[in-house]
């Protein structure tokens, strides 16, 4: 049996982009494979849950888990991997702050089920059949995991040691995290393994950011031809850079698109969406209700804009009337 440190990758409510970012290590993945044994990676290798169950507790050095937690199955796997791992790392926006799946916290379980199994235009389901957690047929029982009331970030279910942010994280951050794990040079528990500064500080366009913005209009990316050299906020685009953690290599900015906030907040912020809202609203010009309302109407969906990747970690965790 190999004595290399054991690493596991697992996915929950996610799109697969985080898995892609592991593959994006390219040649560096060979370096990783030289140094560690991958003991679980459902997207690429064939391992079963029972294989993990058979491992002694804490025998995996680190599990990198991506995806939010929505079903009882995901929750069970998160608990199992927590038990088997020395370090549990929330990998990517969904595990870190809820990600895109957490936007579902704006709707009740009933609204989601009704839309997906009855109302969606592409659905043909005359009997209005819905999934059930247990079904008996010919003396056999089939079971499905339970669909939970709310979407949770990983640390709302089990203890998490580190976070690697991003949708998806950069290969650079992953590589640095693996090297830190192998060398044992780890920051304090609970750290986000990315620089603790706002994206603006690393932004290639920061020099064109005016001191006082006084925006008279908010525009959405499809409504304007974006100047590739000028600060996006100065162009009236709701860029989340001022309140979002850097370390992403300003990928969106380089692609001429505003930051949407996937790296989450810096450590000084407690509620990412509320903080961006604070910044964005105060950059508006206007001194009376009507004028201000007109300018801020350019942000038609504040929850979807400011909590695009972080609704699970919003202090209110989503629409408060939806989960009775």
């Amino acid at each position: 049996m190999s004595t290399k440190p054991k690493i596991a990758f697992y996915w929950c409510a996610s799109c697969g982009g985080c898995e892609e970012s592991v593959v994006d290590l390219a040649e560096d993945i060979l370096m990783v494979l030289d140094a560690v044994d991958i003991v679980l990676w459902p997207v690429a290798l064939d391992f079963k849950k029972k294989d993990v169950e058979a491992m002694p507790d804490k025998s995996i050095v680190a599990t990198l888990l991506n995806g939010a937690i929505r079903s009882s199955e995901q929750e069970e796997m998160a608990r199992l991997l927590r038990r088997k791992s020395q370090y549990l790392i929330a990998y990517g926006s969904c595990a870190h702050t809820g990600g895109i799946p957490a936007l579902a916290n704006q709707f009740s379980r009933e609204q989601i089920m009704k839309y997906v199994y009855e109302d969606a235009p592409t659905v043909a389901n005359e009997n209005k059949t819905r999934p059930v957690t247990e079904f008996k047929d010919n003396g056999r029982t089939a079971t499905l995991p339970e669909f939970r009331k709310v979407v949770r970030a990983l640390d709302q279910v089990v203890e998490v040691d580190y976070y690697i942010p991003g949708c998806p994280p950069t290969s650079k951050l992953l590589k640095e995290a693996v090297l830190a794990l192998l060398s044992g040079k780890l920051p304090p528990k609970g750290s986000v393994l990315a620089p603790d500064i706002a994206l603006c500080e690393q932004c290639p366009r920061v020099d064109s950011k005016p001191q006082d913005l006084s925006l008279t209009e908010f525009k959405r990316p499809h409504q304007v031809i974006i100047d590739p050299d000028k600060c996006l906020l100065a162009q009236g685009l709701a860029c989340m850079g001022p309140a979002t953690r850097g370390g992403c290599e300003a990928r969106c900015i380089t692609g001429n698109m505003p930051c949407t906030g996937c790296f989450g907040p810096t450590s000084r912020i407690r509620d990412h969406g509320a903080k961006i809202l604070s910044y964005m609203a105060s950059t508006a010009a206007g001194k009376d209700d009507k004028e201000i309302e007109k300018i801020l109407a350019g942000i038609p969906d504040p929850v979807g804009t400011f909590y695009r990747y972080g609704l699970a970690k919003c202090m209110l965790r989503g629409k408060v009337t939806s989960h009775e």
Partner: protein
Amino acid sequence: MEAKANVQQTGNGKFEPRIVAFFCNWCTYTAADLAGVSRMKYAPNVRIIRLMCSGRLDPQFVMDAFAKGADGVLIGGCHPGDCHYVEGNYKTLRRMDLLKRMLKDLGIEEDRVRLEWISASEGDRVKFVVNDIVEKVRALGPLNMPGKFKDWDREIEELNGKVHAQDNEEATAHVH
């Protein structure tokens, strides 16, 4: 019900709204002081937090107040043009416009959040506004976010309980 324990009640079991008020030092807080000195009576349901300027009100404070059990949040600042720091209350006005819209989308009723301009001489206005928000929030009933969070998380406690029960069984099996 455990969740009910978070809701403030009087001796007779009636719901008493808990309102967190953020008043600016120069106008509304002074007005509240004036109301007190003038022995005006108003509902005792507000907990006033003094800020140097309403512009110091970070929207995170409002979210935190609701998340920790407030039924309503009242913000008081100087009238437009009267801000001690010239522009602070305009920033508040802009933030509150967007925050109110976002809170509505998050399911918080509009009457639970209120922004008022009250100058240092308007003690009677403090009395009116406080009484008014207390009655409006009373009519809405408790928000009780801590209770709601507990209710939502009951579903994950169940599985946690089961996993621990399994652990205990295994531990017992090893002993035998």
